[in-house]
C-alpha cells in the first residue's frame, strides 16, 4: 500500500517535472519558430548515437568531475568556491610554463611535473580567498568573483606576453596562445577516432581520493565538522581557520589540475577560452552530485551530455547558439527544485494521507 504509493508519488512528481521543463523550453522554441520535437530529439538522442559524440561527452565530464570534486571539498568545509574559473586558468598557466620551460624532459618526468605545477597554480589562487576569509573575514563570494577577473587578465597577459607562440610573432598576428606543447606532456588518447584521453583515470582516481579524504581520514572529518558546525568544531578543538584555508587550497588545486589536464589531454597548448565556464558548471555538478564523489561522476557525465546535446542543436535543428544556455538553465532549475520536493517528508506524508483517504472511500463505494 505505502510502497505502491511511494512509487506512484515519485513517478508522478518526476513526470510533472519533465513536462514542466519541456514546456518551458518549448515556449521559447515556439516563439522563435524553431522545430520543438526535432530540437528535443537531438538533445536527447544525438549525443549517444555514436562513439565520437560519447567521446565528446566524456572529455567534458573529465574537467567537470575534477572541478566539482574540489568544489565539494570546499563546500563541505563551509566555503563556497565560485572561483574555480580563475583557479583553472592559473593551473593552465602554471602547467604550460613548466612544459615550455623543460621541453627536453622525458614524458615520465615532465607530465607529472606539469600536472603538479597546474595543481599548485590553482592551489595558490585558492589560497588567497581562503586566507582572506579565515583571517580577515572577507566573504569568499566577493573575493572569488573578483579573483576570477584578475586571473582572466593575467591569463591573457601570459599568453600574449611571455608565453606567446613564436610562430604568432613571425607568421601570425599575435593571437594570445602558447606554442604547441611538447608531446611529452600529452595525455594519450584512449579510443581511436575520439578525443577521450587518459584524464579519465585521473578523474576517477581523484574521486576515490576525495572520498577517502572526506570520509575516511581525520583531516576530512575535521574539515567536514568545520563546515557543518563551525561553533561545535571550535568547541571540539578543531582549527576552523586552518580547515578553511586547507579546503580552499585543495579546491583550487583540483581546479588547477583540471586546467592542466585539459591542456595536456585536449588542446595541447594554452589558448583563450579553455576554462569556458567549467568553473560555474562545476558548482552545478558538485551540488547535483550531492557533494559526494559517487554522485559527482554520474552528474558530470549527465551534464556533459547536456552540453554536447544542446550544442548540437544549433547544427542539427538550426536553433541559435544561445538556446544551449536556455535549455541548460531550465533543466538545472527544474532538477534542483524537483529533488527538494521529492525529499520533503512532510509533503509526502500529507499527500499519502489524502491518497489513503481517497482510496479507502473508493473501496467503500
Amino acid at each position: 500500500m505505502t510502497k505502491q504509493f511511494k512509487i506512484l508519488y515519485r513517478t508522478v512528481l518526476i513526470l510533472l517535472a519533465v513536462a514542466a521543463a519541456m514546456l518551458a523550453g518549448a515556449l521559447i522554441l515556439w516563439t522563435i519558430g524553431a522545430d520543438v520535437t526535432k530540437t528535443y530529439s537531438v538533445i536527447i538522442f544525438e549525443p549517444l548515437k555514436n562513439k565520437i559524440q560519447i567521446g565528446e561527452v566524456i572529455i567534458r565530464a573529465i574537467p567537470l568531475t575534477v572541478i566539482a570534486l574540489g568544489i565539494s571539498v570546499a563546500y563541505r568545509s563551509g566555503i563556497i568556491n565560485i572561483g574555480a574559473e580563475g583557479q583553472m586558468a592559473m593551473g593552465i598557466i602554471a602547467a604550460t610554463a613548466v612544459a615550455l620551460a623543460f621541453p627536453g624532459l622525458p614524458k615520465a618526468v615532465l607530465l607529472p611535473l606539469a600536472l603538479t605545477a597546474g595543481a599548485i597554480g590553482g592551489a595558490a589562487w585558492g589560497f588567497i580567498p581562503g586566507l582572506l576569509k579565515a583571517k580577515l573575514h572577507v566573504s569568499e563570494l566577493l573575493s572569488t568573483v573578483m579573483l576570477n577577473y584578475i586571473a582572466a587578465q593575467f591569463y591573457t597577459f601570459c599568453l600574449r606576453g611571455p608565453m606567446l607562440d613564436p610562430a604568432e610573432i613571425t607568421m601570425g598576428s599575435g593571437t594570445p596562445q602558447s606554442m604547441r606543447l611538447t608531446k611529452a606532456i600529452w595525455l594519450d588518447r584512449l579510443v581511436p577516432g575520439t578525443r577521450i584521453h587518459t584524464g579519465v583515470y585521473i578523474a576517477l582516481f581523484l574521486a576515490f581520493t576525495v572520498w577517502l579524504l572526506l570520509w575516511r581520514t581525520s583531516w576530512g572529518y575535521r574539515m567536514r565538522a568545520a563546515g557543518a558546525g563551525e561553533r561545535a568544531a571550535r568547541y571540539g578543538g578543531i582549527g576552523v581557520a586552518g580547515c578553511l584555508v586547507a579546503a580552499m587550497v585543495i579546491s583550487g588545486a583540483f581546479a588547477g589540475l583540471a586546467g592542466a589536464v585539459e591542456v595536456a589531454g585536449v588542446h595541447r597548448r594554452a589558448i583563450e577560452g579553455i576554462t569556458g565556464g567549467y568553473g560555474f558548471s562545476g558548482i552545478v555538478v558538485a551540488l547535483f552530485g550531492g557533494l559526494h564523489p559517487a554522485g559527482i561522476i554520474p552528474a558530470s557525465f549527465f551534464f556533459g551530455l547536456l552540453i554536447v546535446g544542446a550544442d548540437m542543436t544549433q547544427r542539427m535543428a538550426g536553433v541559435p547558439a544561445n538556446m544551449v544556455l536556455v535549455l541548460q538553465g531550465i533543466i538545472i532549475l527544474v532538477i534542483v527544485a524537483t529533488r527538494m520536493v521529492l525529499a520533503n517528508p512532510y509533503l509526502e506524508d500529507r499527500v499519502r494521507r489524502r491518497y489513503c483517504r481517497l482510496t479507502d472511500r473508493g473501496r467503500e463505494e
Partner: protein
Amino acid sequence: MDFTVNILALGIPFSVALLLASLGEMFNQRAGVFNLGCEGIMAMGAFLGMLVPYGAGHGAPVPGTFNVLGLLLAMAVGALLGLLFGLAVVTFRAPQGIAGIGLQMFGVGTAGTLFRHFVGGTQSVPGIDRLPIPVLSDIPFIGPVLFSHNPLVYLTFLLVPAAWYILFRTPWGLRVRASGANPRAADSVGIRVNLVRFQALAVGGALAGLAGAYLSLCQVKMFSDEIIAGRGFIAVALVYFGHWRPLKITGGALLFSFAQALQLAIQGQGIDFPYEFAVMLPYALVIVVLAFSRESLLLGPTALGKPFNREMRT
C-alpha cells in the same frame, strides 16, 4: 584638477548599473534569499529595455515615451523572473546558489535567443540622453561631476536613500529584515515570511532588470547578447562589500567605477606596463579595501540561503 573631474564625472555613470543591481540583490538577501541569477535578469532587462523603442521605430529617433515603456517592461519582466526564482527556491526550497546559476544561464540565453529572432545583429537605439540640470551643471567641479548625467543616474542616486529608508524605516523593510534574520520569529508574530521573500525577489528582480535596461538604453544605447559581461556577479559581490547596507554598497559601487575610470584614463595617458594589470585594478582594489574594513557580520541576514517552512525544523 581636470583629470580628477573627468574621473569622477565618468565614474558616477559607470557605477549606476552595478549600483541598481546591487541594491536589488540587497533586498533579496535581506529577506534571506541569495540570488546569483542577477546576471540573467540584467540580460533580460537590457534586451527588453531596448526592444520597445527599437520595435517602435527601427533605430529611428522615437519619442521618449517608448524609452520609458522599455524601462518599465524591463522592470516588470525582471520582477517576474525574480518571482520565478522564488518559485524554485522559496516554494520548492531548491538550493539557492545552484538555482541562481540556472537562472543566470536561462536569462542570458533567453535574452540572446529572442534578440536574435526579433532583432538580429548587435543593434543600437537612440536611447535616453544626458540631461544636464540647468543651473547646477554650470557650477565648476560639482556641476560636471554631479549634475550633467543621464536622468536615470539622478534617479538611481535618489534611490539610495530611498532604499535605506524603506529597509530601516518602513514596516515592509522591517518585515524583510526579520524574514532574513530570523524567519521563525517573524512567522510567530504573523508575518508571512515566504510572501515577504517573494515580494523582495520581485523588487530585486525589478531593480536588476532596470540595471540591465540602463546599460542598453542609457550607457551604451545598444544591445548584444554579451552586454552584461559578468556585471551581475560583481553586483552580487558588492552586496557583501557593503554588508547589506545601501550606503556602503553605494560606496563599493563607486569605488569600483572610479577605479575603472581611473584605470582607463591612465591607459590612455600611456603606460609602460602591460595593460592587463591596469584592467585588474578595480577588481583588486575592491578586495583590498574590504580586507581592511573589519565588520561585525551580526547585522546581516543570519538566515541567508535557508528556505523557511514552519514544520521543517532543519
